[in-house]
């Protein structure tokens, strides 16, 4: 594992470095909302999952959902972060139709989670460490639809009051690749923890990206914030565009204005969203409806003891116990479902120590390769973990060759069935009977006397003979036996 060097952008007057920080809004997985008993389920009828609290009817009081508190603490622990035993809810005041209270209940000076860090996985097995500034709990606003009428906006408060975790990074991110890897890693950690489903299409995970540029090592430049990104690909594109835009302005002798921008995926550009005089003034103050949020260290310790194994720990274990490469291990652990699949294959293996690494190769190369080709994900795999495990057992114990195993994999993919029974019924077993192989070997040597004569001088041409014998046996000869026989017959 080595620490990455980041990408610099070349301008007309020299090189520029990007400085990027992110605010991720992650919807907390819970049945009911942060401060009311209305459901958080996605896709309900308009305003059917709304309580009087969520639309701020007079006299309603918020009561905190303890599961949302646990989820925030779990996430903080997953980010190796400081957990604050006392935090405070504040009112963030702004006036907008998606927010009937006139303020969002959030946490300002005293968040539930403080500083932490995340190790992100980059190309070529490299990593970078990104600092976490804080994580706080807040309410999601309602959803506005603007396309149903030329003069009216339609408002649905089903999402209003659903708990969000806002996770703020330090400005430690240095290029688009790191930014994408950071979002990917946070998403993965939260999906392992079960604290956020990470469904970006449904808006469960959204990112605000702060971008500035500077000469390498120079003081920070003025930043612009790109709001509400819900695709990892777009985040990368928006950063590249925005950094280029800022460099152009600076190289022309201009200045960057601090502002909020929106990314247009169709045009691939960012555009200014709010004029300066409309700049928000949130006038935060402690919410008098809510006491400080307090819990004991024992509460935190109990949650910590029950955390599942997280991707980094799993990766380390795969490398240490099974001898996987750091790259293969990180591919397997990136998505929780992939890791679960691989571990199920491992559990079913007859000899895990011998075949664990081969199983990783099969999952990554054969299975993922095939799934990608057909645009499926692991949960829709036609070959189950049990079936794949059985195929690998058959290779490991020498019943079939690796080449025949690929044919068998294809049959199981297309037709299903028990791999062991298929090998039996279709005569795919490897021939280990020496006399049968010997006959084939003798025939091939007899048919190629010139090549046989050369082998002593060119031992690498033995491979050609192995290939011929394997071909003649329909791939069923045991390659090791073939090798041994050829060596003794040809006298190498």
């Amino acid at each position, binding site marked *: 594992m080595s620490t990455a060097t980041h990408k610099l952008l070349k301008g007309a007057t020299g090189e520029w470095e990007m400085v990027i920080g992110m605010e991720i809004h992650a919807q907390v997985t819970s049945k009911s909302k942060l401060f009311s008993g209305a*459901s958080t389920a996605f896709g309900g009828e308009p305003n059917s999952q*709304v309580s009087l609290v969520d639309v701020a009817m007079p006299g309603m009081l918020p009561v905190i959902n303890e599961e949302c508190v646990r989820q925030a603490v779990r996430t903080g622990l997953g980010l190796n972060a400081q957990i604050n035993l006392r935090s405070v809810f504040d009112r963030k005041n702004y006036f907008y139709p998606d927010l009937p209270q006139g303020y969002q209940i959030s946490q300002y000076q005293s968040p539930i989670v403080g500083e932490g860090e995340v190790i992100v996985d980059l190309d070529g097995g490299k990593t970078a460490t990104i600092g976490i500034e804080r994580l706080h709990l807040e309410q999601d606003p309602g959803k506005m639809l603007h396309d149903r009428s030329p003069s009216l*906006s339609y408002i649905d408060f089903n999402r209003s009051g659903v708990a969000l975790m806002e996770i703020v990074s330090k400005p430690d991110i240095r290029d688009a690749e790191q930014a994408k890897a950071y979002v990917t890693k946070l998403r993965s950690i939260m999906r392992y923890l079960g604290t956020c489903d990470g469904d970006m299409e449904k808006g469960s995970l959204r990112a605000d990206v702060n971008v500035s540029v500077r000469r390498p090592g120079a003081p920070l430049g003025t930043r612009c914030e790109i709001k509400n990104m819900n695709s990892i690909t777009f985040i990368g594109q928006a950063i590249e565009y925005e950094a280029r835009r800022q460099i152009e302005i600076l190289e022309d002798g201009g200045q960057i204005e601090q502002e909020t921008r929106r990314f247009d995926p169709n045009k691939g550009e960012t555009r200014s969203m709010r004029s300066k005089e409309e700049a928000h003034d949130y006038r935060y103050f*402690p919410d008098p409806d809510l*006491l400080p949020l*307090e819990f004991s260290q024992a509460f935190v310790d109990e949650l910590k003891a029950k955390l599942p194994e997280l991707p980094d720990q799993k990766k380390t274990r795969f490398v240490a116990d099974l001898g996987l490469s750091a790259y293969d291990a990180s591919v397997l652990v990136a998505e929780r479902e992939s890791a679960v699949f691989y571990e199920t294959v491992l559990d079913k293996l007859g000899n895990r120590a011998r075949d664990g690494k081969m199983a990783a190769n099969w999952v990554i190369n054969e299975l993922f390769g095939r799934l990608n080709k057909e645009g499926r994900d692991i949960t829709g795999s036609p070959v189950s973990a049990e079936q794949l495990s059985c195929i690998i057992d058959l290779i490991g114990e020498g019943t079939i060759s690796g080449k025949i195993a690929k044919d068998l994999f294809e049959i199981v993919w297309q037709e299903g069935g028990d791999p062991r029974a298929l090998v039996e019924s279709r005569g795919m077993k490897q021939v280990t009977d020496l006399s049968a192989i010997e006959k084939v070997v003798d025939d091939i040597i007899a048919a190629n006397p010139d090549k046989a004569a050369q082998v002593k001088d060119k031992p690498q041409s033995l491979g050609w003979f192995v290939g011929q014998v394997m071909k003649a046996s329909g791939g069923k000869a045991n390659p090791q036996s073939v090798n041994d026989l050829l060596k003794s017959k040809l006298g190498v």
Partner: protein
Amino acid sequence: MMSVDAATVRRIAHLARIAVSEGEVPHLQGELNAMLAFVEQLSEVNVEGVEPMTSVTPMQMKKRQDVVDDGEIADDIVANAPATEGHFFLVPKVVE
């Protein structure tokens, strides 16, 4: 001594979406400054090292279990809205 000027009065009114005519500004400015002067008296007290009090008697914040026990009252939710359609609230178009 903290005080607000006329521009601040207009800004606060705008943030709160309260219509304030030019003629009302001097009066409101006086009222706000009087309130600030009243509150300002607190700064005479030395609170060095004193924790802010959040409740009169020491108590823990009440918490809810994570159960769905509310909602499914869309008729009630939109009952007072000036304009609705299919249980949506309708407002003058706002697009940023």
